[in-house]
């Protein structure tokens, strides 16, 4: 392995090494503050190392086999490590008042970020599987992290069982692909598909199984059932991690896979295209329709993220043409989604107190009159998820829609527009609740709701959470006004 390879691997080596060093340090001396500060430092260093390796090193033989560290991977590493950094910041004040031993949380966050980074750069079936497993194993432990709560353990077990099933499907799919192409490289897929091999059943079955596994990670429609339960049961910072880091890694690989398997003459569409099309449209409708009457905020955000992944697939569909614009649209959409979902779960963290999360919409009734700034931040995040101009979510959706229209994908584009309308309904429903005055004087109101006013008092202990939210708001507005990052060459 050459020095050049080590440099290219730099960001990933930093997070992996950081996790190991943290574990060693915890063996000597346990300190929540140290663990948190160290992981923030490590992730910041990894982020800082990304521009140094930009635009990806021309890797030598050994690396070339397993990982493709190109500008695409590096851009997604930016999303992944940035999101993990925000999760560590949110986690500090979330876990501080809890009885749970919180130090392992940071080790697992660092490891899951490493796994997502591997997945984003994977160019070989071995690294695809290892990255996916590293991500899943860390995430299921994180989902069950609050072992004092049955619902958290339930989320962990559900994630474990379903992630295990999807890994088995992935392995089966990879075996079928190897059977057909005799190559473990991702790029080895393109040849047989282009050649129009007569016996393509095994090939398509293999691709379908891999797509199912990736669809599970992304929470696409027929494989979405775990999403609301895991989002609801996990601690709020972990839900944010699932919504940002895991989705970014899986989407980066999905685009790589689509770029290889959707090849062919333009205009002629193969089965992979139609499979992705069905996944996209089904995810949009399923996510939005299920979210309509959802009273639990975390479940609502889960359904919304299902729909968002469906929107994003619209820009994955024309990947055959290999247009840089479509890749940029996917990147910007995932960036905007990560910022918005991190902000939304950050608001849930900020509104929670003493280990009880403010999950129900009723908990947020009249938030604007008690904590106007927090309500404003939450409104911004919801507006960004809904895709209202001046926020990053709007530009992301704009790029995705533009990509669909440019490639004449009318059906999914129309579905996206319809679903944006449906989505607006439930975002605005929550938004309206934020600004409603409480009719707290009626005594039966107190009897039914669990005293939300006591729950949502501003607390001086949440300084770090508030600062993180402020930074996210700045990013949200910045990405909404200055789409400079969208024109990165990739």
């Amino acid at each position, binding site marked *: 392995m050459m020095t050049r390879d080590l440099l290219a691997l730099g960001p990933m080596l930093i997070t992996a090494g950081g996790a190991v060093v943290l574990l060693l340090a915890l063996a000597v001396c346990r300190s929540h*503050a140290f663990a948190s500060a160290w992981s923030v430092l490590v992730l910041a260093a990894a982020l800082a190392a990304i521009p140094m390796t930009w635009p990806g090193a021309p890797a030598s033989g050994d690396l070339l086999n397993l990982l493709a560290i190109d500008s695409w991977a590096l851009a997604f590493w930016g999303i992944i490590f940035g999101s993990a950094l925000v999760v560590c910041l949110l986690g500090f004040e979330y876990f501080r008042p809890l009885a749970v031993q919180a130090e392992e949380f940071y080790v697992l966050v660092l490891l899951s970020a490493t*796994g997502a980074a591997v997945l984003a750069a994977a160019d070989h079936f071995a690294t695809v599987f290892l990255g996916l497993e590293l991500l899943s194993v860390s995430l299921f432990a994180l989902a069950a992290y609050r072992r004092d709560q049955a619902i958290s353990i339930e989320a962990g077990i559900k994630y474990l069982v379903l992630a295990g099933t999807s890994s088995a499907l992935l392995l089966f799919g990879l075996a079928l692909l190897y059977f057909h192409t005799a190559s473990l490289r991702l790029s080895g897929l393109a040849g047989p598909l282009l050649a129009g091999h007569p016996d393509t059943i095994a090939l398509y079955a293999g691709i379908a199984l891999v797509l199912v596994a990736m669809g599970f990670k992304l929470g696409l429609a027929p494989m979405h059932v775990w999403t609301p339960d895991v989002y609801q049961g996990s601690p709020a910072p972990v839900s944010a991690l699932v919504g940002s880091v895991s989705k970014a890694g899986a989407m980066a690989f999905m685009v790589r896979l689509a770029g290889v398997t959707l090849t062919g003459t333009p205009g002629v569409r193969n089965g992979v295209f139609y499979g992705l099309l069905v996944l996209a449209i089904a995810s949009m409708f399923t996510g939005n329709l299920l979210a309509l009457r959802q009273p639990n905020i975390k479940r609502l955000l889960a359904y919304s993220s299902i729909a968002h992944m469906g929107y994003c697939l619209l820009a994955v569909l024309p990947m055959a043409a290999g247009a840089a614009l479509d890749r940029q649209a996917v990147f910007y959409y995932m960036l905007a989604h990560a910022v918005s979902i991190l902000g939304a779960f950050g608001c849930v963290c900020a509104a929670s107190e003493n280990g009880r999360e403010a999950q129900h919409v009723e908990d947020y009734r009249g938030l604007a009159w008690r904590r106007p700034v927090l309500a404003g931040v939450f409104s911004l995040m919801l507006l960004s998820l809904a895709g209202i101009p001046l926020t990053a979510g709007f530009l992301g959706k704009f790029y995705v829609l533009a990509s669909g229209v440019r490639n004449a994908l009318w059906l999914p584009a129309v579905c996206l527009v319809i679903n944006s309308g449906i989505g607006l309904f439930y975002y605005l429903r929550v938004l309206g609740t934020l600004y409603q005055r409480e009719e707290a004087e009626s005594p039966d109101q107190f009897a039914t709701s669990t005293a939300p006013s006591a729950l949502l008092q501003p607390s001086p202990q949440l300084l770090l959470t508030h600062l993180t939210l402020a930074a996210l708001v700045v990013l949200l507005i910045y990405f909404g006004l200055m789409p400079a990052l969208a024109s990165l060459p990739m």
Partner: protein
Amino acid sequence: MTSVFYISSGIAVLATLLVVTRTNIVHALLFLIVSLLAVAVDLFVLGAQLAAALEVIIYAGAIMVLFIFVIMMMNLGKAEQEANRHRRSPAWLAAGVLSAVLLAELIYVMVANPGPPVGPGNDPREVAKLLYGPYVLAVELASLLLLSGLVGAYHLGRPEQSRAGTARRLDGSPADSSSGSARPTGLGRAERKTQLGAVVAESSGHDSAAIGGSNAGSGPVPTQEEPS
């Protein structure tokens, strides 16, 4: 050779079906071992002798021993025995017959002339060179995967902890080194004991069986130990 392959494949499928349908966990393990051995025979017939040997050594050997240790520690065997006393299930017989078929196959393959084809990648030295050459990154990633599994299992399998600063009572480091939080530090021994009592009561109230650690089967026994 083809018929050997299909017979052992059938045994693998049958044994795996029996694994997931048995209610007695020890019987299920017995069939799991048969299933792994059958897969090893498959690999052997296909020419992957090294993989077959590893399958037997690692899966049927090391990992099964771990399974049996876990079952012994969780004391599930005895409860199962009580529950199943009334019916004599011939699990040992079925597993024995399946294993005997595998043994017969193995003897046939060893005696048969010519033996199974030897595929590439059967030299351990070659495999080692590949693992620590082009695939060194994959090996490192696998180690990280094990690490994350270990950390997760440690966190989820630890005995139930208290609300206050005595959370680390079983780690041998009773001093609360966590940062400036609301946890009180430096509790007296008597006070700690009362808290432990509260924890035991609390943890038995919780759904602690679902946590699946060593705490699950043995109840409040670990919490009665005190750090020296």
